[in-house]
Each structure stands twice: as C-alpha cells, then as structure tokens.
C-alpha cells in the first residue's frame, strides 16, 4: 500500500467567495490508497482520505458519499467518516471508503475510481473539497481462450425439497385457535350460531318446580307470583303490568290463546299484592305451576 504515496497537495478547488482580511489556509487532502495492481474481479479495495481543513469549516453530512453502485463495474460498499478533532486551528477528518470491483478485463487494465466531492460550510459560505480520482490495475482471473468443460463446474447438488410439514402444522393449529377464539367470542356475546334463546317462562317453570320442595309458607305463593312477574318482564322486554297484557299478546301472537289466563294472572296478583284485604284463594300454587308450564310450552314451540 502506498502510504501517503502522493502527498497530493490537491488544493482542491476551493470555491471561495472570500473578501475577508485573513485569507484562510487551503484545505489539504492526503490519500491512503491500496496497492496499485494485482486486483481481480470481486476484490474489495479499501482506501482512506485524510482531509485537513480550517477549524471553522464544518462538513455538510449531506455531501458524504452513500454506499451505492458508482459505475456499472464499481460498487461503493461502505463509507465511514471519522472526526479527528482540532489541532493547531485545523480540523482533521478521515474518510474511509470501501469499493468492490466487478470489472472482468480481458487483459491487465488500469481502472480509474472517480473523485468524491465533499462540501463544507464556514459561516454560510460553501467550500468544496475534492478527494481526487485514483487508479488501480485489474487482471483477468483465468485464461481467456481456455475451453469451458463441465468438470469446471462444481459438483451438482440434488435439488432439496423444502419440508412444509412444520408450516402446515403451524397453519393448522393457528386456524384451530382462531376458530376456537371466534367460537368463544360468539358464545360470550350471544351471537349465532351459539345464540342462547332466552326462555324466561321455562326458567320460571323450573324455578316453580324447585320451590315445591321448599318449606310451605304464606310467602311461598307471593314468591311464586313474583317469579312469574319477572318472567313476564323478561319476555316483554320491560316491566309488564296489567295494562300491558294486550300489548304483550299483540307483540307475541303465539301467546294469544293464553291471553285470558294471562289477564287473570295479573288480576290474581293484584288481589294478592295491592288489595285492601288481600285475598289468597283465587288461584292455587299448582295453578300457577301449570300456568308457567303452559307458557313455557308456547315459548318452546315458538320463540
């Protein structure tokens, strides 16, 4: 490697619009280049440029070269800038660039890497510094006229069949988990196909069957009436009173045949709960149970 082989005082074009009294020192660029020759297609060439400028010059980061395809045969793979700090009023930057050549020469040939232009700023005045172009010699890898033989190819490998079983298992289990979660959600939100039909009268009939075993007492009949009242409330969608019987039967015509019994139930309940002298005889608890079963039967037939 030519270590600062050419201390090129490339007083690189300094676009100065300076009228200042103290003219600033010229920027200096020292190159640290790879060896001149002995390069093949695919080789990586690392170079560095040490740039010394006045301390008040600030590098514009936008002007740094980006890793990219520089030419059809040259790729800039990496660019790195190191700030070396200020010494004696001069600031030193070290710009490291890594190129890769893809040039396939038929004979040894010198190639030129294009220059890199960096922009600096000093109190608003732009200053450009050029890292100059440089050359290296690249050579062919093999004889130009050598015949191509199959043996030159490397061992062919049998094509590999990708094993998709784990992916299938994963997809299947994800699908199952999704379906399960969807089902649970539908069940939780009472959505089809898990829609639970609200059967207030079936619940009431069940509750009344259960109270048969409870100890008998004056409150039991009242409790039975209240169970049925709540069932009517649920079926009607709001609190249902004696005045609502007609509206209920209109809204749910399946209960039409029971209309009179429903009205009679509300009358009986009124006599028990509200009358000045509560009468307890009109309907027995067994009647209420039978009434609840009849309502539940209608409800089962038609939702």
């Amino acid at each position: 490697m030519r270590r600062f082989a050419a201390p090129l005082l490339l007083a690189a074009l300094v676009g100065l619009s300076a009228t200042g009294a103290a003219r600033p020192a010229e920027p200096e660029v020292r190159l640290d280049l790879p060896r001149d020759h002995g390069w093949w297609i695919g080789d990586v060439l690392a170079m560095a440029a040490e740039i010394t400028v006045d301390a008040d010059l600030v590098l514009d980061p936008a002007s740094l070269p980006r890793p990219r395809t520089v030419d059809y045969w040259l790729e800039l793979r990496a660019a790195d800038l190191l700030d070396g700090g200020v010494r004696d009023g001069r600031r030193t930057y070290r710009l490291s660039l890594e190129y890769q050549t893809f040039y396939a020469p038929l004979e040894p040939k010198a190639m030129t890497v294009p220059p890199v232009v960096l922009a600096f700023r000093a109190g608003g005045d732009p200053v450009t510094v050029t890292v100059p172009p440089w050359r290296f010699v690249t050579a062919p890898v093999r004889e130009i006229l050598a015949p191509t033989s199959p043996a030159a190819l490397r061992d062919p490998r049998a094509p590999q069949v990708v094993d998709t079983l784990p992916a299938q298992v994963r997809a299947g289990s994800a699908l199952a988990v999704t379906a399960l979660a969807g089902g649970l959600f539908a069940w939780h939100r009472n959505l089809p196909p898990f829609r639970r039909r609200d059967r207030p009268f079936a619940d009431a009939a069940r509750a009344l069957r259960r109270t048969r075993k409870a100890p008998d007492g004056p409150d039991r009949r009242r409790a039975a009436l209240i169970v049925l009242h709540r069932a009517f409330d649920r079926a009607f969608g709001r609190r249902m009173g004696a005045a609502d019987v007609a509206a209920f039967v209109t809204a749910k015509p399946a209960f039409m045949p029971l209309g009179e019994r429903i009205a009679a139930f509300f009358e009986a309940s009124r006599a028990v709960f509200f009358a000045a002298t509560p009468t307890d005889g009109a309907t027995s608890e067994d009647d209420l149970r039978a009434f609840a079963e009849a309502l539940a039967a209608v409800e089962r037939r038609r939702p």
Partner: protein
Amino acid sequence: MLTPASTPIDLAAWRSRALAFERAVKTAVLGQDGAVRLMTIAVLCRGHVLLEGDVGVGKTTLLRAVARALGGPYERIEGTVDLMPNDVVYAAFVGEDGRPRVEPGPMLRHGEDLSVFFFNEINRARPEVHALLLRAMAERSLTAFRREWSFPHLQVFADRNRVEREETFELPAAARDRFFMEIAIAAPAEPELRRRLVFDSRYHDTDRLVETVPEAVVDFRGLAALASAIQEAVHAAPAIETYVFDLWEALRAPAGAGLIVPGVAMDRLVQGGASPRGVSALVRASRAHAFLDGRDFVDPRDVAAVFGPVMAHRIFLSAAYESRRDSVVPALLEAAFAHVPVPR
C-alpha cells in the same frame, strides 16, 4: 252545606258526583279526557294546578269550565309585566267624590269563601307576584287590611303558554313544587275532533260554551272533608309503598338505579330528585285516581297514570340538560317505569 268531619262521608255518592263533574266539564272541553281526569283528581286532592300548552288549545276554557262545575266564588286575573302584588290584593281607585279609595282587590273581593283563583299567563307576572301567590297556595292565607285572611276552600289554577319566552318570568323551582300537578295540554290528535273544534259553531264563543256547563256539580265546601276521606279510605299496600319508593329512588339517582336514556350521561342528569312533598302528592293523586276508578286500593296503574303530571316538574335537571327538558324528562320517566319492578 258544610260536612262536619265526624259524620261519615258517603264515598259512593261522592264518586258518582265526581264522575258527573267530569262529564260536565267534558261538555265544554272536547278531546281532553286525560286532562279532565287529572283536573278532577287535583280537585279531589285540593291541589293547585298549572296548565301548560300552546296558544289557543283550550287551557283557559278548561279552567273556566272546571271553575263553573265546581261552583263557589271564582276570581280571575291576567298576569302582566306591570302587575304588582298590591293589584292582586287591593283595588285602588278615585271615588265619585274625588277622593281616593282602596277596596278589596280580586283576591279578597269574595271574602274567605273564594273557591277558585284563576291566574292566567302566570309567567308574565313578576316574581313579586309569584311570591304572594306562593304563600296563598302553600298556606291558603294572606295578610291584608292589617289582618289575616284564610281561604279554606281556595284552589289556584294557573296557566302559561310555553311558546313565548320574551318578557316572561320563569317560575322558580319552589313555586313549581307547590303546584300539585302540571298538566300539558295539546290540541286533540283525532282529526274528527279537530274538525269539530274548528267547524262546530258551539265551540266558537267561549263564554256561551262555558255557560252550558252545569253549575256547581260538586259542592266546593265539602271537598276538603272528601279529600281526607279518600286518603283514609283508599288503601296503599306495602307493595305499592315499595314501588313508589323505588321510583323515587330511581329518579333521585338514575345512574345508580341503572336507568338508561340514549344520549344522556345519567350520572350528571339529575340535580335534585323529587321532594317529599312531591312524592306525597303522588300518593294522594294515586289514591284519588283509584277512587275515581271505583277501587278501594291503589295499584301500579294509578301510580303510572298520575306520575308524569305530578312528578315531571319536580325533577331538577343539571344545567346542561335543562334546555332539553321537554324530551329528556319523559324519556327518564319512561326509563324508570320500564326498569322498576312491581310487585317486588
């Protein structure tokens, strides 16, 4: 004919008289059966009534018909911006001899027998007049000519139209609470009735129309005794007590009771629920409703029938919802009835 409290009152006879009173009022007022029933209940409970409605729907006619069917001395005053309390109590004028005279004004003209005091367009009168009226309503008494006047039979009927807001004075909450009922009057919905109201010449002249109402169908002097007899005779079962209390609680704290009105933040809706005076009025009105229905006990239908007129104006909404009162309060009452279970 004053009925002493000791003599038992024939409630059945009084009921038929009350129904006759209703029929009498209905001869002059078309298509307002609900309002007439509520007015009858107010009369049976000795409660003051505020009628509210659009212009020209028959508020004044209804009140005049009720006053006539009730019998007894009746006085009427129009609320205006320049009406002062003294104008209600005293009549000042210059006599024939050129000397100033002060005589009893509208409220005192009939002495202590005054049965109906009818305040037209109450929201046009100033707050000073409201204050005078409040005392007359709450205590049925008045101080004038350096003495106390008491009006044992007095019932105040007032009306206000809700169309105008210019040059009016909103009734303070305390005043509204003293009205037993606030009845909303709207033109009848049935096209047939509306056609008759417009084309039947019978309804063109209000004075002649009111004159057709039979006079003094019920004896206004007996009403006080009847009112307390009804309250004693009509039974309110514990289940009804629970129901009324639950409704009261639900309106006091709608969010806690689980009421839902779409588009309303329930926890910020109600500023003050109904007063105990309001709920006691509700119970009294429910009993009167049951009495008119021919029952000796209150059932939930009675409560539901009088709930709106008795309670709606006693619910105080927070300022944010006060302007939407006309839609929010009915929705709130509806939610309460849909939510509170009975019997429980």
